[in-house]
């Protein structure tokens, strides 16, 4: 039987290393797409996605490197898209902010805050009508909570009792503005609990804890058919857009980063696995992931750009 702890680690490691490679190559200026890095949020995305079947569907934001790699688990079309090549998930038309792989359940990602939340509930409605048992999970940041369409969507999903999991990845910062400057209420949980759904929250960076919490929530959803709301905290390691830190900008404190880094999800899970399986086996997994990433980047660099006609394809069917 596959070791779930190892599986969780492998997925998180793939995400972290892919992003570290993006950092490494970004200044070569060949990846001409704005990068909104997932670094710091890996435990949330992997913990939730590992609870889903491949046919379950996810929707994400412009910050969806982690979501793509966790749900789709491939790197060739991923890096193809980063490099703007015809081998990319959208033939280079979408870039970092518009990753998708409907065949693997990543339906779409969007760069307008909160705009994918209603799309996700519509997909959940379709699944409910089709009685196909599929779950929909929609990821969004805490900034989305201030958008009207967020409330419209939560209301409609709770009214219609749709099979959907809302996942608020709460890093307390929307672009560069702290939640204390954006909220007319104190606790999101208190408000969400007023709706006909189940609310869970956690600030854990332990991926197995997120995994267990999500499993419990899904069991609850299957039993009671109510929507689920997961409110999960993390710390965004890098700037809003770009591959660097920005603590010197002064809107947040490096000390906060250090607190979170001390419980970094990848380091935490690695330590656990080394104790469990020994470092040799962990190294083997890591080496294979690293090799995969290097190969995918090499392929993406060598791939062709899309021809001019691609700019006009798929406007209409």
């Amino acid at each position, binding site marked *: 039987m596959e070791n779930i702890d190892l599986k969780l680690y492998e997925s998180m490691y793939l995400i972290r290393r892919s992003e570290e490679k993006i950092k490494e190559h970004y200044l070569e200026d060949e990846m001409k797409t704005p990068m909104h890095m997932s670094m710091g949020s890996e435990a949330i995305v992997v913990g939730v996605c590992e609870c889903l079947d491949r046919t379950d569907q996810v929707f994400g934001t412009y910050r969806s490197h982690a979501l793509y790699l966790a749900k789709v688990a491939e790197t060739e079309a991923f890096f193809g898209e980063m490099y703007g090549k015809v081998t990319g998930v959208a033939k280079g038309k979408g870039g970092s902010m518009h990753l998708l792989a409907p065949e693997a359940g990543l339906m779409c990602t969007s760069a307008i805050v909160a705009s994918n939340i209603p799309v996700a509930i519509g997909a959940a*409605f379709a699944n409910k009508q089709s009685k196909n048992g599929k779950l929909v999970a929609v990821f969004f940041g805490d900034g989305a909570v201030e958008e009207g369409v967020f409330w419209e969507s939560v209301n409609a999903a709770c009214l219609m009792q749709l099979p959907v999991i809302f996942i608020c990845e709460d890093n307390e910062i929307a672009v560069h503005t702290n939640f204390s400057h954006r909220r007319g209420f104190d606790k999101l949980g208190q408000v969400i609990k007023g709706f006909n759904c189940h609310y869970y929250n956690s600030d854990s960076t332990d991926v197995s804890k997120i995994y267990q919490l999500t499993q419990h929530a899904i069991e609850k959803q299957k039993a009671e058919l109510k929507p689920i709301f997961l409110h999960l905290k993390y710390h965004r390691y890098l700037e809003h857009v770009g591959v660097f830190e920005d603590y010197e900008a002064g809107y947040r404190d490096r000390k906060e980063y250090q607190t979170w880094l001390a419980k970094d999800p990848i380091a935490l899970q690695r330590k656990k696995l080394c104790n469990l399986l020994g470092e040799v086996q962990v190294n083997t997994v890591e080496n294979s992931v690293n090799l995969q990433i290097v190969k995918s980047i090499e392929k993406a660099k060598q791939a062709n750009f899309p021809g001019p006609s691609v700019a006009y394809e798929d*406007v209409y069917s």
Partner: protein
Amino acid sequence: MSRVISYRDAINEAMFEEMRDDVSIFVYGIDVADHKRIFGSTNGLVEEFGEDRCFSTPLSEDAMTGFGLGAAINGFRPVHIHMRVDFMLLAMSQITNMIASTQYGSAGKLKVPMVIRAIIGRGWGQAWQHSKTLHSWFAHVPGLKVVMPSRPYDAKGMLKAAIRNDNPVIFIEHRWLYDVIGEVSDEEEVSLDGCSVIRAGNDVTVLAVTWMNVEALKAAEVLKKYNVSIEVIDVRSIAPLDIDTIVNSVNKTGHLIIADYDWLHCGLSAEIATSVYEKAMYSLKSSISRIGIPETHCPTTRPLENEYYPNAIDIIRVVEEKMGIIDINLEGEEFYSYEKKFKGPF
């Protein structure tokens, strides 16, 4: 077989027949299933197809538009209805940022077979938030098809085609057209891509949009008495725009009047005029004339409302000028108004 029914019933029949034949279609929106049934156009649907396939929604235009997109990419064919196009503005981000670009942004992996029906135009005393048209806003965005049939035959055939189409289609219906009666076909689809010459003529081409077709036909009737032969073309599809049919007509008549039903500035009439100048400038015997809504907001009181909306008389006056006819006497002519509802035949 063809029958004569109202525009309202034509819309209703199209939805009924399509829902009967395809279980993936559902109809939804604010007050879609209430006792008024969107001016009667959704009559009988909830009774026949149940509340899962015909339902009223929360007052959440933005979310419920995205909801349709989500269902559409998951194999359904949603028909979302707005009682007034003005309400649809709350959903412009979903329509423009999401729906229009979903297929493109997915490199064709996702299709959006969704219809958004919007009711437009003049009622009576509706003021500026219940009376807009805005078709050129939608037609401006690649990825959306925009149609606005004026006759029951086209309303039924184009709605059937829109529902079957794999692209998002904005389907625009003028309220006053609901009582118009005309022939419809039982099963036939009507293309979403073409203009329709609804009255042949030789002297002046009048290109009419939605309700302006009724006004243009009335104007043509009056002008016939003065030996002026008007060709009326219904621009029933504005995205894509069938410019060839328009150019062919202009090559024949040499005169073009565009009778739009929206603000002129940056609107459809400017787009069409430019295209005609590009393709047929040397056929023109007079410069292109545009009729439409002036650069102000829709007022409530009847005299000002009458001033605001274009009509058959505006068309007649422009033709007079083009053809050098002096002061056609309109006494005794009966024009359409809310009080004298137009009921066809059309």
